């Protein structure tokens, strides 16, 4: 029984947030601060012939105008580093999508900066364009970079699919598509850069301060040590605020003007130019035996990566590693590709390729169940991973695989909901199930390790230093809980500082559902390391072996003789007397083994699981879908803070519901058609069911801190599949593309064999 871990403690940052005191980047102001605006390309693909800034420079109140030639260091960013570091922060020879940055302005007011932007004259020579990924694949397609638009190909090959298909009793094929998605955090990106002596400080809404520092430093030609990144309160990230273009541009302006410079994107800019979810297609072929066993799976994933590489190689990789879903398959052939087009660039977004492959694998399983005449849940149970299962990558699952437990728990709920269906008039009701596994933490080519420092101060209170970016998911609180538990002290004694790269140490990006597992474990190890200093001191004071001592509820005592004890406080005082500083550091990276050329390896150190159940009402007259009930059954190892686990699931359901029913970035020849939140629609409260439940299954991951894994992306990735499955249950139509709008459902209903009236 733990004291702090596992408890629904109040989050540490909420007090500031409910009073409006929490400072988001745009809330901040500095003396003499300038305002920045960006001149953007109106063309999707063009050579830059000439940029004339004279008139703009002469406008009163304009301090500086910068173009590519003004970048002192390397004019290149890209989260994965070389060879995928292909985006200039200011376009040099050409622009590659509408919105590409061409010039920067810093002025005394936003208004003046806007006026200056309009006065800059750029002459372009238009180049042929390519927007469609199938066009981009063709050898004679216009090229964005180098010789080919294909810049990534991940293979995962296991066994022999031809043999597998030959042995199969039946084969199912499908093409599944997901569109370009927008993170739609309510906070548009913002940042302030300022230079103090030889140190550049950037205060911004970032998910990746350690990495952002390096990128900014390279742009400026500074050593990493002289760039400081401070994470302002982040108003939602979901992967979109790993992108650091804003920070780099603000820093460049601060460097040139020697003044603080604020850059805040408008909602339309945020929609157009910051990283998106790549539109993706999953083409697949699955072979089954008549007993319902999966014998072979062949998958091709194609990502429309847009103008620059950003995270696309990693998205293609993850999609491939999870392409068979959480099912045992002996013969696998997965090819996952990323192609350039003249569209906004894809980056990291919650789910990271899995939403597309999950749409495919869950739909195929439902279709197979229908063909076999068995319950879709039972078919999943038949094929689901167990301890000892070998994944498509050859990785063997060695410990606690709770997938089947989540499915078994779902059984009862599905049965109950089906029994209590109430249909009336044109309304049909359906219940659907989906399941997913999710690798926790990143895998190559995304860097993964984290570190932390724990210092026990001489009054027994504790500071934790890390750069684990809390973007609203509550990682600061989780780290505090983990450290408090490791040291056996009260949560109120722990202060976590993750916001400042001057205080914290290298931490992985907040992504891949991995902060609890990786950064949390790093913090625990740092606490354990600090603890060992205390225990060594206590061992001396008590005259026992250090190895016998435990630290619990503010007391250090010997397991062998509980009378041999000393309070945490007194042990600290003894350390002070001995002139010992109680300091510990720790680092952790998930136990992985990189994928070889056939995609064989162990890409993730741990996997979380979820089964989700949706109930929908379908209006057969209009095609409208209403999600009336939704339950998630996650297994995420130890739930360090159950309230936060629920929060992730509930929020994930809203994101998944939005993506199932209404979310889509629409572009016409590279021109944004959905620039506002009135056109890119996300669910309002009335679109979400109030009957929203999370039933957390207990679990334990031995490699994670106190048994914890991660939850962020099991939360949203299978949601569309559960909804689509429920729609099929209600009205018998199968959908292979999201979003499924009322219009699409209506059209499918008309095509069905039985006419609407008789249904």
């Amino acid at each position: 029984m733990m004291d702090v871990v596992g408890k629904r403690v109040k989050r540490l940052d909420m007090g500031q947030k409910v009073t409006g005191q929490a400072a988001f980047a745009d809330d901040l102001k500095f003396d003499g601060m300038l305002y920045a605006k960006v001149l953007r390309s109106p063309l999707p693909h063009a050579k830059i012939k000439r940029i004339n800034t004279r008139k703009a420079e002469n406008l009163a109140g304009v301090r500086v105008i910068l173009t590519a030639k003004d970048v002192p260091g390397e004019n290149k960013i890209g989260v994965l580093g070389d060879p995928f570091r292909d985006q200039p922060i200011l376009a040099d020879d050409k622009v590659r999508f509408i919105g590409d940055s061409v010039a920067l302005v810093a002025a005394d007011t936003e208004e003046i900066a806007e006026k200056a932007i309009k006065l800059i004259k750029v002459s372009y020579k238009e180049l042929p364009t390519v927007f469609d990924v199938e066009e981009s694949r063709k050898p004679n397609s216009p090229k964005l970079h180098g010789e080919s638009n294909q810049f990534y190909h991940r293979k995962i090959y296991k066994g022999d699919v031809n043999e597998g298909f030959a042995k199969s009793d039946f084969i199912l094929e499908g093409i599944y598509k997901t569109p370009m998605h927008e993170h739609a955090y309510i906070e548009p990106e913002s940042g302030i850069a300022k230079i103090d002596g030889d140190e550049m400080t950037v205060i911004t809404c970032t998910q990746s301060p350690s990495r952002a520092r390096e990128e900014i430093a390279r742009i400026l030609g500074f050593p990493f040590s002289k760039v400081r990144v401070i994470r302002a309160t982040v108003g939602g990230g979901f992967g979109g605020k790993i992108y650091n273009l804003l920070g780099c541009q603000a820093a460049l302006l601060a460097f040139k003007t020697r003044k603080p410079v604020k850059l805040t994107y408008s909602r339309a800019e945020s929609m157009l130019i910051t990283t998106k979810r790549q539109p993706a297609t999953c083409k697949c072929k699955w072979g089954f035996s008549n007993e319902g066993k999966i014998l072979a799976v062949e998958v091709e994933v194609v990502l429309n990566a847009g103008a620059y590489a950003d995270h696309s190689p990693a998205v293609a990789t993850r999609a491939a590693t999870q392409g068979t879903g959480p099912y045992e398959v002996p013969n696998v052939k997965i090819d996952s590709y990323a192609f350039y087009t003249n569209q906004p660039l894809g980056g990291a977004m919650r789910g990271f390729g899995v939403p597309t492959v999950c749409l495919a694998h869950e739909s195929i399983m439902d279709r197979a169940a229908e063909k076999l005449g068995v319950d879709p849940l039972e078919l999943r149970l038949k094929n689901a991973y167990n301890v000892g299962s070998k994944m498509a990558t050859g990785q063997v699952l060695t410990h606690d695989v709770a997938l089947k437990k989540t499915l078994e728990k779902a059984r009862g709920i599905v049965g109950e909901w089906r029994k209590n269906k109430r249909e009336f008039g044109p309304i049909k009701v359906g219940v659907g199930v989906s399941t997913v596994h999710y690798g926790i933490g990143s895998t190559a080519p995304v860097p993964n390790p984290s570190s932390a420092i724990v210092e026990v101060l001489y009054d027994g209170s504790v500071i934790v230093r890390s750069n684990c970016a809390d973007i609203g998911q509550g990682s600061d609180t989780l780290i505090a809980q983990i450290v408090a538990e490791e040291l056996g002290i009260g949560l109120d004694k722990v202060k976590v500082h993750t916001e400042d790269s001057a205080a914290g140490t290298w931490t992985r990006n907040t992504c891949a559902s991995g902060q609890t597992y990786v950064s949390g474990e790093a913090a625990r190890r740092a606490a354990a390391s600090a603890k060992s200093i205390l225990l060594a001191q206590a061992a001396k004071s008590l005259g026992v072996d250090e190895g016998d001592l435990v630290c619990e509820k503010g007391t250090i005592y010997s397991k062998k003789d509980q009378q041999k004890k000393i309070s945490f406080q007194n042990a600290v005082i003894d350390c002070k007397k001995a002139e010992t500083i109680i300091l510990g550091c720790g680092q952790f990276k998930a136990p992985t083994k990189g994928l070889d050329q056939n995609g064989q390896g162990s890409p993730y150190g741990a996997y979380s699981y979820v089964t989700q159940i949706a109930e929908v009402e379908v209006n057969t007259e209009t095609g409208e879908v209403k999600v009336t009930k939704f339950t998630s059954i996650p297994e995420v190892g130890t739930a360090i803070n159950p309230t936060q686990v629920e929060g992730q699931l509930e929020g994930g359901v809203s994101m998944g519901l939005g993506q199932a029913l209404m979310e889509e970035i629409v572009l016409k020849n590279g021109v944004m058609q959905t620039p506002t939140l009135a056109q890119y629609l996300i669910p309002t409260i009335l679109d979400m069911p109030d009957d929203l439940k999370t039933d957390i299954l207990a679990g334990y991951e031995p490699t994670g801190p106190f048994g914890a894994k991660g939850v962020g992306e099991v939360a949203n990735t299978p949601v569309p599949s559960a909804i689509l499955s429920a729609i099929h249950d209600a009205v018998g139509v199968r959908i292979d593309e999201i979003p499924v709008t009322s219009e699409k459902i209506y059209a499918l209903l008309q095509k069905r064999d039985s006419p609407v009236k008789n249904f």
Partner: protein
Amino acid sequence: MKKYIIPENLSEALEALEKYSDGAKLISGGTDLLIQIRDGKTKPKYLIDLANLRELNYITTKDNSIKIGALATHNDVATSGLIVEKAPLLVEACSSIGAPQVRNMGTPVGNIMNASPAADSTIALLALDAEAKIVNKGNERIQKIESIFAGPGKTNLKPNEMVTELQFKELGANQGGGFIKLGKRRSLAISIINAAVVIKVDKEKKIFTDARIAIGAVAPTPLRVKGAEAMLVGHSINDETIENAASKAKKEVAPIDDIRGSASYRSEMAYMLVRQAIKKALEGIK
């Protein structure tokens, strides 16, 4: 933008409109106009803010004729006991606009002056056969709102004219109304298509004696489908009559494809929504 003008009463507003007519825009709720200005879609030189014209904030009835002043908000209408009792379809329409904050700011008169082909309150008012009191300095006239719309976002009002009031007859004992909206989500949604119906019946003969059917987002302006109306009037109240009217409505609409929906879906839904709205209106009578 050259000047912001803030009149304290209607006659000052009319003075300002007279003086600045061509380059001026009136702002009441602001929920549409401010966004158009920010997007650069409209560039008025003068902005006349009507917010202080408290004399135009009323919802009253006289001789069975309901009058809604220009400053009455969607929320004022949706929560008015008078409207709830005497024209409930307008309550449904105004309640389905935007979201609570938008309903506290926007006005039915404002939506009419904005001439969106899809505005929920406008469609209900069209089915109520509402009239607008159109005023300029020294003159006032009444015009049916049906004839005010000239195209998407355009009215045929002169630059120095404003609408100060809408009026329509209370629904009587043998009348019923219904409003249906189809949106892409359940709040903060512009309609894919909407429909409003006001019918009158003869309870003894069991026939429709009058019908007004209005559909939004299916034409350049809010549309009365008079062919469909004619399929009801004089006919028995039964499913076949309703089917005929709904089918006729589908043929009368001329929707386009846009980001919210395709023309063919809108046509199909015109049929569905008219059918549903007529049934709803009938329920309101019993």
